[in-house]
């Protein structure tokens, strides 16, 4: 039944290479160079989807990114299927499978279409109004609404495609390769500027490249031939990069732009494999030239949404570019000259044009005269009042317009057709310009918003700047570009141009019908199904701001972002409300200009590259020894080392016991390490830590607490005095980068007079911590010539040593309360030393332990972890660490805040210990603590910050912060949980070895 809708003489489509594809399960054929839309039209398929709200049949309406209706689901694979893609932008490839969206069970028979008959009772904001109450019914409503509405289906499995990101820096970026873009890019390249030209199509040249019409000539050639030659010269410029199939998604401040390049979407299924599908270009351009062209406007009249109603310029592109006839008997409806170009193109391709319905009075431009000469019938000063045909247009009803254009008069003419081209004039594509912060101005003569002021080094040229006539485009482009690039390119100055000029302009936003408005269906936003009536209703209900009307009626909020509908919505609002369009302004155009895939946004940072991972020098050992890992910031830290089938609890119990009974070994390499040198190093430490440092002897270590200026604990760690003016500071793992940055801040801004230099050495050293009563014996085996006596090498001191000729530092410091040592050795040897220690410790059952056991052991001793037991609201006093605050020092960071009225409050939350009445009961970290259980609402006094079962004490222990906790020692409290209430007693924070005997054991 498919009639031959292809014309044979066509430059852009390779009619020798046939491509098979599937649409809604049916096998169809097209050619290389087709889009899905052009191939469907060639197969006489117009109906491709159902509308969002009323489920009305909808057909292909445009030929580019502005397409509102022909949005389809591509692919069937659960991991690769892509919803909401525009059939007009999908290049046909062998194996393509696409299907209609928003219809069930099929596009030809859609259950939801019943909404169309109820449409009088589904006005603007119907869903908002109807499903608001009762509130708990929403769950029910939502299910049905989502099922019957909703656009395409998301993929359910991970995307197998590969995506990529690239940064690009250039002198000039030209967006859009139409005639003005080509001229701009060539001028820039000629003047040795590093230039990039991008275009979202696969072939450069915009609409001019298929404009072959006597009325548009340059230097005696058809405009398309002239442009083709210009494009061919571009290849000679080495400093010009051309990227086709690349669409600009976002234009941010400082000329930072994002563009998506399609690399494989057009390839046959079997050629796509293992190639990058899309690449997101992050472009920083010194200068940006926008030449994105214009979008043809539809006309707003009764039943203007039927399949077969297509923008007139799109019909022209389908015939002139793709060689596809959108119909056999085509009518055109216009308010401007451009429909006549379509009429002439159709005529010269042998398609019969019924008539052109023009709302204007008779006009005599060059192109109109040419159309008349070809015998094309024109209905002047007329409008279409209705269209017929359910799944495809089959007739139009034409009437004369009254003089003022608000009504129709006279006799109704019926005209049969199988396609209607509509043209409501042109809207400059100013989206990118406004995204970048540019302000628009309104031009009354032809009702367009054109670029006005911009803060950025950019310019708009061609029709996106409001130049619609060929001769103006060329003349203005030349002038603007020369000025913008500060060059003098004379190549385009003396061109002989023939260009038909539009003489008469007329615009009616909402065309009248012979029926009352309420009985008509003049669609504004085709994708979101909102009509002119909805917009008027919103105004009647009191919405004034364009942004509010947009949200209330959803006009312009679909995936096409109202590329076609916005201007009419504005026009109708302005008209109804009696304000000027220029004053009304536009809604905000937000990025992306066309939808981006998540894949393109994420790039290659998926799977193993999802997040950055840092590894310690001993990482491989942990892996070999079956450690489970914990993410601490970006670090992979050994969490625990299960033996056989141990779970985490069992492993941690075993590790914790072994560390106190004999010996444990921990990889502490992730601790931040800062090398501090300079004559004021001691003074500097005095200022950044709460305690005093000047008198710390060389060779000794000291624990320090660092506050913020607000007095809250920020970080902690042990710092060692290596020599008179040389210290090594350690920080927490998570705080390393921030502490260094904070200290640098003080040195650079507050205390530039201090002679102190900081250098991060976190990654230079591997740190091995060995603890337990047998740690000394192990160290003595590893470093036999080191005097480990308490007298020579007491707790909180350090020694330099050599292990097999490699320099290292041994600190005798302890985070577990056990006698312990930390070996710091340059990272390249750390794994080897670790293995040596492990070997030496075998006789003592040395047990590797991870972060979980480390946390348990320190909790037994009541040592805090900054960030776990503190949360940025705890002062050292709150932590019951008053001993670490120097009374003598005049100042240190945060000192003044320690006696603000708020910090001296007695009922602040303070750190305490908690013991459960049932020693087997382990509290949950984060659980709330209350003083009574009957009252409601009950006051939350605090919460559990750390909680473990201690194998060394054989009971459950916990740390908690609780209001006025210091004074509540011995008090009974309750921890209410979901199914029970746990009785607890407030205790001291130190559970084990209060006398610190084990340190020297």
């Amino acid at each position, binding site marked *: 039944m498919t009639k031959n809708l292809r014309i044979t003489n066509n430059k852009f489509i390779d009619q020798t290479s046939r491509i098979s594809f599937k649409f809604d399960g049916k096998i169809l054929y097209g050619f290389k160079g087709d889009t899905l839309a052009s191939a469907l039209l060639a197969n006489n398929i117009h109906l491709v989807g159902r509308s969002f709200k009323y489920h009305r049949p909808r057909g292909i309406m445009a030929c580019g990114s502005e397409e509102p209706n022909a949005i389809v689901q591509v692919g069937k694979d659960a991991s690769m299927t892509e919803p909401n893609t525009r059939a007009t932008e999908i290049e046909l490839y062998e194996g393509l499978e696409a299907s209609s969206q928003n219809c069930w069970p099929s596009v030809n028979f859609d259950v939801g279409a019943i909404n169309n008959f109820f449409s009088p009772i589904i006005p603007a904001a119907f869903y908002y109004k109807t499903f608001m109450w009762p509130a708990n019914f929403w769950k029910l409503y939502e299910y049905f609404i989502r099922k019957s509405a909703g656009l395409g289906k998301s993929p359910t499995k991970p995307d197998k495609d590969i995506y990529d990101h690239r940064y690009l820096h250039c002198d000039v970026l030209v967006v859009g390769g139409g005639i003005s873009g080509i001229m701009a890019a060539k001028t820039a390249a000629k003047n040795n500027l590093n230039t990039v030209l991008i275009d979202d199509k696969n072939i450069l040249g915009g609409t001019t490249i298929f404009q072959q019409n006597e009325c548009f000539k340059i230097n005696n050639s058809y405009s398309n031939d002239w442009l083709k030659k210009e494009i061919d010269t571009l290849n000679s410029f080495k400093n010009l990069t051309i990227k086709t199939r690349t669409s600009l998604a976002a234009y941010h401040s400082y000329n930072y732009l994002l563009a998506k390049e399609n690399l494989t979407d057009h390839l046959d299924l079997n050629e796509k494999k293992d190639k990058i599908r899309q690449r997101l270009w992050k472009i920083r351009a010194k200068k940006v030239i926008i030449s994105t062209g214009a979008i043809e406007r539809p006309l707003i009249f009764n039943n203007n949404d039927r399949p077969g109603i297509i923008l007139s310029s799109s019909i022209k592109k389908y015939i002139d570019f793709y060689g596809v006839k959108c119909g056999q008997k085509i009518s055109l409806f216009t308010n401007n000259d451009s429909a006549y170009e379509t009429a002439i193109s159709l005529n010269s391709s042998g398609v019969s044009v019924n008539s052109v319905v023009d709302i204007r009075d008779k006009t005599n431009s060059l192109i109109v005269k040419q159309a008349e000469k070809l015998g094309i019938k024109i209905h002047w000063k007329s409008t279409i009042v209705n269209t017929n045909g359910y799944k495809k247009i089959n007739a139009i009803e034409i009437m004369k317009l009254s003089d003022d254009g608000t009504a129709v008069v006279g006799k109704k003419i019926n005209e049969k057709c199988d396609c209607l081209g509509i043209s409501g004039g042109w809207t400059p594509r100013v989206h990118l310009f406004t995204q970048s912060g540019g302000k628009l101005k309104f031009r009354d003569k032809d009702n367009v918003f054109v670029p006005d002021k911009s803060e950025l080094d950019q310019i708009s040229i061609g029709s996106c700047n409001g130049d619609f006539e060929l001769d103006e485009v060329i003349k203005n482009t030349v002038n603007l570009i020369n000025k913008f690039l500060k060059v003098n390119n004379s190549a385009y100055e003396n061109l002989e141009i023939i260009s038909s000029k539009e003489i008469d302009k007329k615009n009616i936003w909402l065309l009248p019908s012979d029926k009352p408005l309420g009985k008509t269906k003049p669609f504004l936003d085709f994708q979101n199904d909102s009509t002119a009536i909805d917009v008027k209703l919103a105004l009647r209900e009191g919405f004034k701001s364009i942004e509010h009307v947009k949200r209330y009626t959803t006009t312009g909020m679909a995936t096409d972002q109202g590329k076609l509908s916005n201007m009419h919505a504005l026009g109708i609002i302005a008209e109804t409300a009696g304000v000027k369009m220029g004053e009304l302004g536009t809604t905000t155009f937000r990025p992306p200009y066309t939808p981006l895939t998540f894949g393109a946004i994420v790039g290659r940072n998926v799977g193993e590259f999802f997040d*950055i991972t840092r590894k310690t020098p001993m990482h491989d050992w942990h892996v070999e020894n079956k450690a489970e890992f914990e993410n601490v910031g970006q670090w992979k830290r050994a969490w625990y080392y299960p033996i056989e089938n141990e779970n985490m609890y069992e492993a941690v119990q075993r590790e914790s016991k072994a560390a106190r009974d004999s010996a444990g070994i921990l990889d502490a390499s992730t601790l931040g390490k800062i090398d501090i040198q300079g004559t004021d190093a001691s003074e500097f430490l005095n200022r950044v830590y709460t305690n005093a440092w000047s008198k710390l002897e060389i060779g000794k270590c000291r624990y320090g607490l660092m506050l913020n200026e607000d007095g809250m604990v920020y970080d902690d760690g042990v710092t060692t005095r290596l020599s008179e003016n040389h210290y090594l500071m350690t920080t927490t793992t998570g705080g390393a980068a921030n502490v260094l940055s904070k200290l640098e801040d003080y040195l650079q801004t507050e205390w530039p007079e201090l002679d102190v230099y900081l250098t991060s050495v976190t990654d230079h050293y591997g740190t091995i911590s060995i603890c337990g009563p047998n740690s000394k014996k192990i160290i003595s085996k590893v470093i036999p010539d080191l005097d480990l006596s308490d007298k020579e090498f007491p707790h909180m001191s350090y020694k330099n040593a050599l292990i097999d000729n490699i320099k290292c530092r041994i600190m005798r410091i302890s985070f577990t309360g056990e006698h312990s040592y930390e070996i710091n050795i340059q990272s390249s040897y750390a794994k080897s030393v670790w293995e040596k220690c492990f070997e030496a410790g075998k006789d003592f059952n040395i047990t590797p332990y991870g972060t979980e056991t480390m946390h348990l052991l320190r909790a037994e001793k009541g040592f805090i972890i900054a960030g776990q037991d503190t949360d940025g609201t705890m002062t050292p006093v709150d932590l019951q660490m008053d001993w670490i605050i120097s009374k003598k020092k005049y100042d240190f960071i945060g000192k003044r805040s320690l006696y603000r009225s708020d910090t001296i409050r007695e009922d602040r939350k303070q750190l305490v210990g908690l013991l459960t009445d049932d020693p087997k009961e382990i509290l949950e970290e984060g659980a709330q603590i209350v003083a009574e259980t009957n009252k409601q609402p009950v006051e939350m006094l605090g919460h559990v910050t750390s909680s473990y079962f201690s194998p060394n004490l054989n009971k459950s222990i916990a740390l908690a912060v609780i209001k006025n906790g210091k004074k509540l020692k011995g008090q009974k409290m309750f921890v209410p949980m979901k199914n029970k209430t746990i009785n607890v007693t407030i205790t001291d924070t130190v559970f084990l070895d209060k006398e610190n005997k084990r340190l020297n054991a």
Partner: protein
Amino acid sequence: MLNFNNPVIDTKEYSEIRISKTEPILKMNLRGKNRDFITKIGKELSIITPVDPNTSASNEKLNLLWLSPDEWLLYSNHMIDLKDANFLDDKLFNEISKKKLGSVTNVSDHWIMINLNGKKVFELLSAGCPYNFNNFKNSKGAVTQTLFNHIDVIIHNKNVNDLNLFVRRSFSEHLFLWMNDAASRI
């Protein structure tokens, strides 16, 4: 003897990109503000200390990279034996830090040096660096500190399409794998 262990970074060749590692080499972080410090380093190393931003100076053995107005990275061109490294480390520390001119810190194992070589190295960098290499590309000796796939790096332009990239050791394996993934698709 202790074994020397470095993150697994094997030499990999792709079309016009070669990624390799030269370790162990000596790396020292030098910091100081006054003129004496600057002349002292020059004297000790026989290199004119680079004071212009984003530049470096080199001799047959050593490279000195400008990092900030008071910070430089020194690294050796070739693998260096332990004795020589210790000797230079001690000498600089004694002459500069001990004499209160500034600071000298051995950071040999803080950084891993990865050499990137080939016509497409800048394409590789553009996959993850926001930095504009258009001028850098043509300036031998240029230095930049920037981000590469969100990881801090120092990049030294040794020669035409021949770069040394420094990345903190703990990040090096991740960055190396990421670079391989990127390079394999260029």
